[in-house]
């Protein structure tokens, strides 16, 4: 990216976006004869050359198994791999031992849930007893969660006898601190919530909920999938106990996710997957586990992916997370105002003036989501349609599916305007207006 960064408190300018876009080869694609307008970054982001190059350079020159070898390449690979951990840890304000590589964010959330389950089954020794759940204990989630931050807790409740409760959302799909306070109690052991909703763009009052939870002795698990890529994060500062996010939504590869956990908790949580590289001594009957993060990284980890993810983080830092957030706020506002002004279109989530992430989901009266998506696709506009892995939220809002347009640092104002233009026409095309 060749743009000169001027004021870190200002949104990225249109001019800078044009420079940034040259770093992303996939943004040059055409779709159905139209230039691609990629408005699906909340599902997966595109990758800049720098990230692709970093991974390839590693694979062409330093590729080896990490942590197990004494030879030079293995040493170089291990160093690059652990440096990547430090880079990503620092990105969220954490120490390197507080960051575990996982397969994706879903895997990270399952790791925590299975840690609790294993502790409940008596695994992990005395240190793990604090994680054991039993009937009477409660796990609290919100009604707006992605399935990744819901179904693992359902399973945990099912195998431990704990009760799953939820913080309900209102007709806009959002909830307040008061709504949370009404559900949390001294029986609450875990509160799991999304930092930013992938459907509504709602930014959760995390610090307030952490305070409520900790006052009741509960641990907080944050789904940071939609925040880590788009805003500066200080996880220890937020006070959450665990947090999860995915590489592929933040310019990095698929095949890698991140679990953050407070050091003290990670060292006490029983392992999830077991196997090589996470043990110290193994006999035919027993195994001793290494401290975190190694105890959670069984087998050959996503080495080149970690290195690529660290490069993605450096790329984000070069642009500036605050500037990305500001830019996306402007784009979200433009989408929201534009869409809300179209007859027959209902937007979901917080209204104007309330902080929201750079995405807007909406329902087109009388036209099925897949038809909306197909219509936009014919114009080169890539959006997501469906329940976005949040069926309970859609059910609560009286919908089966919605259409979601999501922006990233490389999204142009023109792309948003193309979306708005086509959204104007879609109901007429399908005879709904």
């Amino acid at each position, binding site marked *: 990216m060749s743009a000169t960064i001027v004021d870190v408190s200002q949104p990225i300018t249109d001019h800078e976006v044009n420079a940034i876009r040259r770093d992303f080869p996939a943004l040059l694609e055409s779709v159905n*004869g139209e230039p691609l307008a990629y408005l699906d970054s909340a599902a997966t982001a595109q990758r800049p050359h720098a990230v692709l190059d970093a991974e390839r350079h590693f694979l062409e020159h330093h590729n080896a198994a990490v942590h197990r070898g004494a030879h030079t390449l293995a040493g170089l690979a291990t160093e690059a791999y652990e440096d990547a951990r430090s880079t990503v840890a620092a990105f969220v304000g954490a120490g390197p031992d507080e960051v575990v590589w996982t397969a994706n964010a879903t895997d990270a959330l399952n790791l925590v849930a299975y840690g609790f389950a294993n502790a409940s089954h008596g695994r992990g020794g005395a240190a793990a007893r604090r994680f054991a759940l039993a009937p009477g204990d409660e796990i609290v989630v919100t009604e707006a969660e992605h399935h990744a931050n819901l179904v693992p807790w359902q399973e945990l409740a099912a195998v431990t006898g704990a009760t799953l409760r939820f913080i309900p959302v209102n007709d806009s799909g959002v909830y307040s601190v008061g709504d949370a306070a009404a559900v949390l109690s001294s029986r609450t052991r875990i509160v799991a919530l999304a930092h930013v909703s992938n459907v509504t763009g709602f930014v959760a009052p995390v610090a307030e909920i952490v305070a409520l939870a900790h006052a009741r002795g509960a641990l907080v698990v944050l789904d940071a999938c939609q925040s880590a890529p788009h805003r500066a994060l200080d996880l220890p500062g937020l006070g959450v106990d665990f947090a999860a996010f995915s590489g592929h939504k933040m310019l990095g590869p698929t095949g890698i996710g991140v679990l953050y956990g407070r050091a003290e908790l990670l060292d006490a949580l029983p392992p999830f997957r077991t196997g090589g590289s996470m043990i110290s001594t193994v006999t035919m009957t027993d195994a001793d586990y290494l401290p975190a993060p190694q105890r959670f990284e069984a087998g050959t980890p996503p080495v080149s992916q970690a290195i690529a993810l660290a490069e993605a983080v450096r790329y984000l830092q070069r642009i500036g997370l605050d500037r990305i957030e500001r830019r996306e706020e402007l784009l979200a506002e433009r989408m929201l105002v534009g869409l809300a002004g179209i007859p027959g279109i209902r937007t979901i989530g917080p209204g104007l003036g309330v902080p929201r992430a750079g995405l807007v989901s909406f329902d087109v009266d009388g036209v*099925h989501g*897949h*038809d909306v998506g*197909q219509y936009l696709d*014919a114009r080169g506009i890539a959006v997501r349609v*469906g329940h976005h892995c949040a069926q309970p939220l859609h059910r609560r809002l009286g919908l089966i*599916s919605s259409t979601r347009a999501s922006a990233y640092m490389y999204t142009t104002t023109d792309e948003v305007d193309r979306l708005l233009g086509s959204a104007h026409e879609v109901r007429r095309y*399908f*005879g709904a207006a």
Partner: protein
Amino acid sequence: MSDSLANLYQQVILDHARQRIGYGQLDHADAERFERNPTCGDEVMVRLALEQGTDRIASLAWQGAGCSISTASASVLAQLAEGLTLTELQSKIDAFRAMLRERGDVEPDEDVLGDAVAFQGVSKYVMRVKCAMLPWVAAEACRGSLT
């Protein structure tokens, strides 16, 4: 763009999606089958009544919620099915499936498929083939339960 879109959403399809031939209940059904597309959550219930004592379809009705492709497909199916024997129905289902799997390489027979030939363009959209097949799969199961 208009080319690709018009190829998928033939006017016949858009019309059927609005007309919804056969949408509703039946007083009496000899067979019924519920089908769901797990990817999108769309649902269709297909009901089938035979002319008394024969294997000839008196009426095919459907209910459900779905995209214009699955809705139009149900409408076309209902239109086509009336008066067919179960065996004839099956051969139309086979022809429809074959057309959708061909990716547009073979010219479908309008004598066999009627309005359903309009779905030929769907064959190029892997994600939408399931939409078009949904009611036909339900109808096929109805037939299966009757023979």
